[in-house]
């Protein structure tokens, strides 16, 4: 028995990093890089191998973190007096800027969510009347201003308009199932009624589905195996005759 531990779900590597930083209660511009990197990599270890695709995104950021960490370890060159205008480049800066941008959208998502929950929507007239519906030359619809997504959306609208009955019909195509037993009974019945040999050809019909053809064939083989019918072919490519085999006495 394998126990699965459900980890907290993160929207992505940046989301995870933000949460780690939040927990440490530090500014994103002043990340304790070594500590955060360690925690981040700890989390990575718990990602299951089966989620490799997700993991790869997390690994990219782990590499970035390690790079930043290694840069932090290297002594920075003392600034030459002539270079005084050049600010000391913090290796963490680029990452911090990315994080701060991500953070904005992370929060916007929350704002959007709130707006949605408030349900303050505006409505416009349903489709049907507008400049696109005024045909300039009768009979010829202009495709000029119609994009692929317009077509997709229209098709989807029509698709949604299906009546419930049509949906029922469409969603469940009843497959006619024929079992080998049924087919055996059926063949046996025909042979009994005819009381003489019947050609193999007559058991098949052109409107049979592929499955039905196969089932018929197997049913005949089964009947032959049980020695209930005899199958005879007088010559190559001649009609195959099927007949009830009367028990030999």
């Amino acid at each position, binding site marked *: 028995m394998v126990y699965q531990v459900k980890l907290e779900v993160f929207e992505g590597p940046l989301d995870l990093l933000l949460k780690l930083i939040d927990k440490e209660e530090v500014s994103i511009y002043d990340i304790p890089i070594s500590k955060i990197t360690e925690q981040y990599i700890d989390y990575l270890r718990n990602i299951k191998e089966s989620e490799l695709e997700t993991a790869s995104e997390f690994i990219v950021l782990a590499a970035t973190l390690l790079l930043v960490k290694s840069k932090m370890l290297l002594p920075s060159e003392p600034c030459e007096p002539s270079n005084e205008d050049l600010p000391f480049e913090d290796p963490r800066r680029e990452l911090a800027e990315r994080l701060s941008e991500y953070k904005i959208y992370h929060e916007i998502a929350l704002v959007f969510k709130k707006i949605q929950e408030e349900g303050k929507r505006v409505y*416009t007239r349903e489709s049907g009347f507008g400049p696109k519906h005024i045909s300039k030359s009768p009979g010829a619809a202009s495709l000029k201003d119609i994009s692929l997504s317009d077509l997709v959306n229209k098709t989807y609208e029509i698709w949604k308009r299906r009546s419930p009955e049509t949906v029922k019909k469409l969603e469940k195509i009843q497959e006619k199932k024929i079992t080998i037993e049924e087919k055996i009974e059926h063949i046996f019945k025909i042979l009994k009624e005819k009381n003489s040999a019947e050609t193999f050809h007559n058991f098949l019909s052109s409107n049979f589905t592929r499955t039905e053809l196969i089932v018929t064939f197997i049913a005949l083989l089964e009947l032959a195996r049980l020695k209930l019918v005899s199958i005879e072919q007088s010559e190559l490519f001649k009609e195959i005759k099927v007949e009830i085999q009367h028990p030999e006495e």
Partner: protein
Amino acid sequence: MTGISKPDKNKRAALECLLFMSSEPLSSKLIAEILGLKTSDVMALIQELKELNNREGRGLQVMEHNGKYLLCTKSEYSAYIEKLNKPRKETLSHAALETLGIIAYKQPISRAEIEFIRGVKIDSVLYTLVEKGLVKEVGRREGPGRPILYGTTLKFLMLFGLRSIEELPELEKIKNS
């Protein structure tokens, strides 16, 4: 607004009729053609109509999308409309909202740029947003690979109760909150 001359008033009424009837946003150029006015006059009339509709006791307001106009209901009355015609519930995941937010504020934007900001692949999220009609292809960027650019749709404005994209909450305010 007593200064409006009579013919202008009539044209403004006609403008209101056009915006009311159309289910798709109308360009000021097309309105100008229909009303026999200059585009700048149409813009002035639209501004007047906006102010008129902003008054209390009005249910409709002018909505703007990509420089085109139409009438929409005011967001404070959405509950009544939803009693008349129940909307499909649009629930969006946090990932979808994040992506939508990036597109809304940075449009037109390519998929790769969104992915850089979010740090994850967004294929399926983007597909969902396009399918829901909140986002659509708005063109291609000239340059290597000519990437597809995405922007928000009229439906996006409707869902978030915005009269135009300018009504999005200010980024600065969100940053400081």
